[in-house]
Structure formats: C-alpha cells, structure tokens
C-alpha cells in the first residue's frame, strides 16, 4: 500500500471538537482521511481509526460514558479485536477506556481546573503502532487541554502496564493533572490500540502548534499500514 492509499477514519460524535484537526493531521502525514459518523455502524473500509477529542454527547454523565454505546463504537471494538490500529486522543482516550479497549479511567484533574498548556512528554515505548517514529527517551512538546485527564488505575494494573512496556508517554517537567505515575498515554497488549491525553494533532505544524512533535504518531501508524 502507498501512504496515500492508507485510509484513516476519524469519528465524529455530537460534541466532537478536534475531529477536523485529527483529519488535517492525517492528511499532513500523507494518508487519506475518512469521516466516520457516530450513528453509522460502518467503518467504510478504513485501515485505522482515530477517536478524537471533544465532549462527546456533552460528557455530562462521565467522560466517554455515553459515546461507548454509539453504533460506530461497536464496530471499532470489533475491528480492534482483529488488530486494527486505533488511537484515542483526550476524550477519545476516555472513550476507549470506557469501552474497555484500554485499562484504567480518566478522572478530574487534581488541580480541579481545566488546563490548556504546552506540555513536555517523554517517550517510554516506541514499539507500539503509534510510536515507532520516536526514539525511546525522546522529549516532545505537545499541547494538553482537558479538565478530566488524571489517569487512574489500581496498582497491579499500573505494575502490569509498566512491566509490559505499555506506558507510551509520561509527563515530564510537571505533572499537569495528577495522573498516577505521570502516565500520559498507554497502549493495549498488542500495541495497536493507543490512548493519550495530550493532543498530537495540535502539534503537526509550528505555525499553529508549539512544535510538529505530534506528527510522528500519525507517521508511525502510516509506516505500519504501508508495510502491511
């Protein structure tokens, strides 16, 4: 497959906000972007799926709690089971946790405020589908913007995540939300499904973001798809 032949879907729920940015990032990485509608139980033949940031269905009950029941999510869970790469950013991370594709839960920031700022991250693992372009230990500057991003899981779960090398990113130079063990992003057992609170799609062009450090995530997935 050529890069442009790779089709990456981006879901739009009512209340999704960063769907346009995620699609722009996919195009900037050289792949084709495909819009997926929440009410559509159809992935339209895409090769990978991004669940973007926002406030799906208003996020009033719990972040991601209503979105996990959307018809499109049933298909995403099925496809992920068959090994399709899936990336959840911010609200998308919350949705993937609620849907059981990733362990743990995102809770209210320890500072109790919504936080929007440029955040340093360290790459912990570069073997997942979404992180192969990074060097382990590399530091990235990527925006965060969330009110409920404190990653919480029980100690055995955290131990297992760390032991299996499934922590993708950690916050450095200050933990912005009180996440346990400074965790900013994780992946599933196979390294195909990833979720993170920071917004790589807002760091693909220094004109509109602090850096283009986020582009590597989209290029990483594209490498896998092209090689397949």
């Amino acid at each position, binding site marked *: 497959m050529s890069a442009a032949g790779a089709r990456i879907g981006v879901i739009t729920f009512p*209340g999704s*906000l960063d769907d346009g940015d995620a699609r722009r990032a996919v195009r900037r990485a050289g792949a084709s972007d495909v819009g997926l509608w929440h009410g559509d139980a159809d992935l339209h033949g895409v090769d990978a799926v991004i669940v973007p940031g926002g*406030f799906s269905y208003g996020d009033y009950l719990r972040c991601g709690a209503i979105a996990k029941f959307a018809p499109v999510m049933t298909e995403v869970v099925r496809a992920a089971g068959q090994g399709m790469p899936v990336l959840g950013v911010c609200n998308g991370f919350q949705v993937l946790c609620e849907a059981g594709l990733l362990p743990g839960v995102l809770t209210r920031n320890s500072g109790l*405020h*919504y936080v929007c700022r440029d955040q340093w991250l360290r790459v912990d693992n570069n073997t997942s589908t979404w992180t192969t372009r990074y060097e382990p230990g590399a530091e990235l500057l990527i925006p965060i913007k969330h009110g409920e991003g404190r990653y919480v899981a029980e100690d055995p779960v955290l131990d297992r995540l760390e032991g299996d090398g499934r922590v993708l990113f950690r916050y450095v130079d200050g933990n912005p939300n009180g996440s346990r063990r400074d965790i900013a992003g994780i992946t599933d057992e196979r390294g195909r499904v990833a979720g993170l609170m920071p917004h790589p*799609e*807002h760091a693909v062009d220094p*004109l509109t973001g602090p850096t283009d450090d986020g582009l590597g995530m989209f290029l990483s997935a594209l490498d896998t798809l092209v090689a397949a």
Partner: protein
Amino acid sequence: MTDPTREAATQDPATPNGAEPVDSVEHAARTPELDQPYRELGLADDEYERIREILGRRPTEAELAMYSVMWSEHCSYKSSKTHLKYFGETTTDEMRAKMLAGIGENAGVVDIGDGWAVTFKVESHNHPSYVEPYQGAATGVGGIVRDIMAMGARPVAVADPLRFGPADAADTRRVLPGVVEGVGGYGNCLGLPNIGGEVVFDESYARNPLVNAMCVGVLKSDELQLAHATGTGNKVILFGARTGLDGIGGVSVLASETFSGDETGSGRKKLPSVQVGDPFTEKVLIECCLELYGSDLVVGVQDLGGAGLSCATSELAAAGDGGMRIDLDTVPLRAEGMNPAEILSSESQERMCAIVRPEDVDSFMAVCRKWDVTATVIGEVTDEEHLRIDWRGECVVDVPPRTVADEGPVYQRPVRRPAEQDLIAADDANTLSRPATAAELRETVLRMAASPNLCSREWVTGQYDHYVRGNTVLAQPSDGGVLRVDEETDRGIAVATDCNARYTRLDPYEGARLALAEAYRNVAVTGSKPVAVTNCLNFGSAEDPGVMWQFQQSVRGLADAAAELGIPVTGGNVSFYNQTGGDPILPTPVAGVLGVIDDVTARIPTGIGAAPGESLLLLGDTREEFGGSEWSRVVHGHLGGTPPRVDLARERLLADVLGIGSRDGLISAAHDLSEGGLAQALVEMSLIGETGARIVLPEEADPFVWLFAESAGRVAVSVPRGAELKFTELCSARGLPCSKIGVVDDESRALEIQGVGDIPLSELREAWEGTLPRLFG
C-alpha cells in the same frame, strides 16, 4: 368601584372551572380598566400610555410582556440611540466599501478578500455574571456565538474582556474564578479557541463586574444570512432547546428583578432570573445551522437571546413582509403551566428561529433530526402587517411588529459635564514623587510586573482552549489574536479588544480615542492591517447626567477616531446601569478591532529571541505622560491629570511600517506599549521569549520617564541582524521616530537595564507569574 383584578378572575368566560384566565385580545378590549403591573416590568407611565394608543386598547398580559422587554434599555437602546446615530453620520462611503452588514444587524460583516467575509461582535453579560458568575459568563459566551451564527457564519474564535473589583477583595474571589470557569466551560465545550481578551481590576467594578464576550465568525461573502421574515406563507420554525422558565423578564429589568406573574393571577413563586447554558446543545446547533445554510434551506434566521420569542418574532416580522402568525401551543416547553407571557419572555438558551419555504420544511426537519435538534413549525409569514399570536384557540397578541421592534421610545437624557472633571484634571500625576536611585527603579520594575493589572494572565487563559480548530496562529499573551482563515492561501485575521477606563475617566473623549488607538495598534503589531471596529460600551446609570456626558463623549471619541483611522464601526453593544448606589463604574467603552493578514506565516510574535542577534528598537515618541498611568495607581493609588496625547496619524503610520516589516521579514518580535510603559513591555518580551536583553536608553533620556510613561503610539520591536539598517531606513523615510534601545542577548538570563541594574529572568518570572495563582489558588 369594582375591583378589576377580581373581575378578571371571577367573571371571565374563558376561565372554566377555575383554570387560569386567558387574557386574550378580546378580553383586553372588554376590560379596559384592568390594572396592569407595567411599572414592575420597567415601563414608564408615558410608555404604557403609548402602548395603549398604538393598540387602541390596553395590552394583553402577553403584549405587555412583549413591549416591556422590547422597549427595555437593553433591547431598544432608548437612552443611547440618539448618541449612537453619530457612528453612522461619521462613516463615509469609502469606509463603508467593505462592509456587507453594519449597525442594526445581529453583527457587522466585513469583506476580507478572496471571497471570504468575517463577522465579529462584543456583547455584555455583566449583571447576570455578578449574580451567578459561572452561568452568567457561560450564557454570555453562548449568546454572542448565536449572534454570529445568525449571520450565516461559522463561529471560529471567542475572546473575553473582563473587569473585576480589587484583586484581593473577597467578592472578587467569588466572582472571578466562576466567570473564568464559565467562559472556559462553555467556550471549550463549543470547540472555539479563546484567543484574546482582557482582565482588569479596579475598585469601581467591585459590585459591577464587566463580562464582555466577543465572537468572531467566518463565512463566504455570498453566504450572508439576514434576520427577516419574507415570503408570505413561509413557515416559522423554532429549533434548538426547549422553552422553560429561564430568565423570565430578565432583560427588561437587567436581570435584577423578576417578573413573578403574581399580578397576573398565576401565583407562581418568584422565579430565578438566571439562565443555565448547555454548551453541548449549542455545539450541535452550530453544526446543524451550518448544514441548513449550506443546503440553502433558510430564508431568514434570528437567534433567541434576551427577550426570547418576543424579540425573534417581532424583529423577523418587522424586517420582513411585516406580518406573522404564531401558534404558541406548538412551542415545545420544558416546564408545565407556562402562560403566554412567560413563553414569549423566556430566555431559555440555545434556541434559533428560522423562516423556511413550505417546500423545504421536510428537508429542514431531516437535517435537524440528523443532529438530534428539536425543531417545530410554530407559525407562518403573512402580509397582514400584524404579529398575531394565538394560544389555546384565542388571540393573545395582535400588534404591529414594528411598534415592538423598531419604534420604541427614544430619550434625550440630560447630559452634563460634572464640575469635578476640572478638579481631576488639575490633580497632575506628573508631580507625584518618583523613584530616584537605580535600586528604586529596579524595585519599581518588579513591583509593577507583579501588580494585578500587569502580571501574567496565565492563571486565567490557561483555562481556555486556544488550540482547537487548529488555526490559531497567535493567542494570549500576544497583543492580538491571529487566526488562519484559508489553509490554501494562508489568509488570516487578527482581533484585539482594549479600553483603559482610567484614561476615559480623566477624559472620556480622549480616553475612547486611546482605547481604539490601542486596539488598532494591538492588531497592527501582529503584522495585520486593521479593517473594522466594534465596541461594547459599559457605563453607569443613564439617568445620571454625568454618566450620559461620559457616554456622549466616548461615542464621539470612538466615532471620530474610527473616521480618522479610516475604518468603519460595524456594530456595538451598550450596557448602562453598571453602578451601585451613586457610584458608577469607570466609563468603559471597550473597542474591538478586526484586522486582515494576507499571509499568517508572516505574523509577528511577542517574545524575543526567535532570531539570532536581534536589536531592540523603540518606535514612537516618549513624553512625560503619567496621568491615569498604571504607575500612578500601583505606587500612589492616584487617578488624576490628563491622559496621554493621541495622534491617530501616527498610529496609521505605525501600522503601515509594521505591516511592511512583517511582509518583508524585517521584524522578529513586536509588542505594543501601554499600561506600565516600556519597562512592562520589555519584561513581557523577555519572559515570553525566555531570552534576556541588554537595554541602553538614549543619553538624553530620563530613565524613569522612558521606562514608565504611557505615551501612546509606541511599539517595541526586535529586528534580526542584517535587517536593522533596512528597517531604520524604512522608519526614517516615512518619518517614524525610531530609537535603538538595546540588544537581545541569547546568553544572558537577565534583563539588564543600564542605570537600573540586572534583573534575572527567574526573579522577573516569579514576580510576573506568581500574583494570580497566589490570589486565586
């Protein structure tokens, strides 16, 4: 003598089995002597008489609710109208050339080239934000966003000029965090980047905080929507949230009292006048509206804001074919037992009203279903010159819509310049005692940087999403926010809002000119060309002749300055009665300026250190001007003298030079000089750029005056090595004063000012960034 209320309750044939009486038009005609609570609704005796004259009978309850809310200060501009005319009188055809819509529309619209148009507006939501800070601020954002949607535009950014009482006052600790959370909570959830705004503290706002909200929208210039109900037989569709008991009567009495309905027999308990916003519903409504516009399913559209359906129906009809019939029973309600007056006055949020051709109704409904938006046909357009509203089979409103929407009362309020203005002017700030030694100057730099009005706004702006939509090129703490509009051509826009109300207090005419000059300059320092003006005029009581003088002078100042700058005022908003007892707020005419930048990649940032070996230059003239200055406030608690001189020809020249400098890559950073003067500008340029600098003021300069005076028309720029000569030649060829004041020093971690000393950036940062977190946690 019979008791008319009793008569209404016991003898009305429309009241079977003790149900609530319907005060129909017919009933009103039969009961001319019924006492009506018009004063409680804010109507004056003569206004009520005029309504009776227009109708040839007493108004029904529903009509009374409608007139009272539409003839309120907020909706009718009855005290300001006579002054606001001046904006139109001073706008020339040349200035108007790029305006697609102006004053009187929901928001002004400006052609920015390449087929793009931009609409922008600022509105106040002051008193509701004092009563309930979170919801007041949130619904303020929601309201202005709907205004922008009603023009056919996609909202693309917000910015919020905010003013509070003293930073350390207990009530400010209640109001500010709530307001900031409300602005963020609503705007973040809508997916609109917050790219600008202001936070100002002053004693005068202690019980009268100002929460102004700006929204910017983008549309193709041929996609403009208008608020008119044309085409007899076309359907009126209400869509969005359901109608509940929110903010009943809030507008007519500035949300400070409630229209309880006790007088009208419903016996309902006193209702809260606050409204609760639902940003998720509004986000969906935005996408739904844009799809409806894109499919050409809308003939006219109006948002429901203050005055709710009263306003939407009467304004749509007045601007259209003149007539409309509405069946109130079809309005989807959230609360039980609402009467017609309540349904018409409800300020429930997240609602819009559209005029739709009958053959398009099915397609319209299909789009609404896709977005899960409730939509209901509630009536149709007629050519009867009447707005007729039925409820339970009876006509409860039958009025000529223009008398409601356009022909409200106009007042010539007394205007008198207060004698104390002379005393204030005579209290010269230039005679205040000044720091004399280097150590005192150094201490003053730090003290100023840490003061509430000059310190970092990160505690506030860090709660706002400024990245969403991926088009934000510059946001706070930049002087102006810059957005990319077109990804193909990199065309973009800039916005800034400003008002130094201390200047306006000293001289409302000159102060207003200074406000506009600063907003204009803040757009220009980003490399953008200023093209249009909006405003939000916040003042005390319209019944105070001194306040009306401030208002009249400010309007004249803004209009004259806009004319001198050659850019039109495209719209505005007036908020009176921002006062407690006899103490009005400082006159606060917030000026908003829109700019266009052909290539956003040429935008000029604020922080130094981006290019190696930069020189620092100061553009403009520095004079001994301390009247209204931040230094006089922070150090002496003083407000007196005269504000800095305004030279608008100089401002235009500055903007031209900055535009050329940006286009030709001659400028690597620029920062407007305003509150706190050069010292504060240097502090911010260094801290934002995380780079030190060495400053050597010209030999003849008095360091105190150069560092702290607030002379207008000045900008500090850093110029890359190799561009300095070309840039200084550009300035001298055009007659713009330009003094070299130092160099950027990549190695140094300090701001070194000759004659003052070295201040490590870490020390400056602690001063600048520590204040708001310390105050607000």
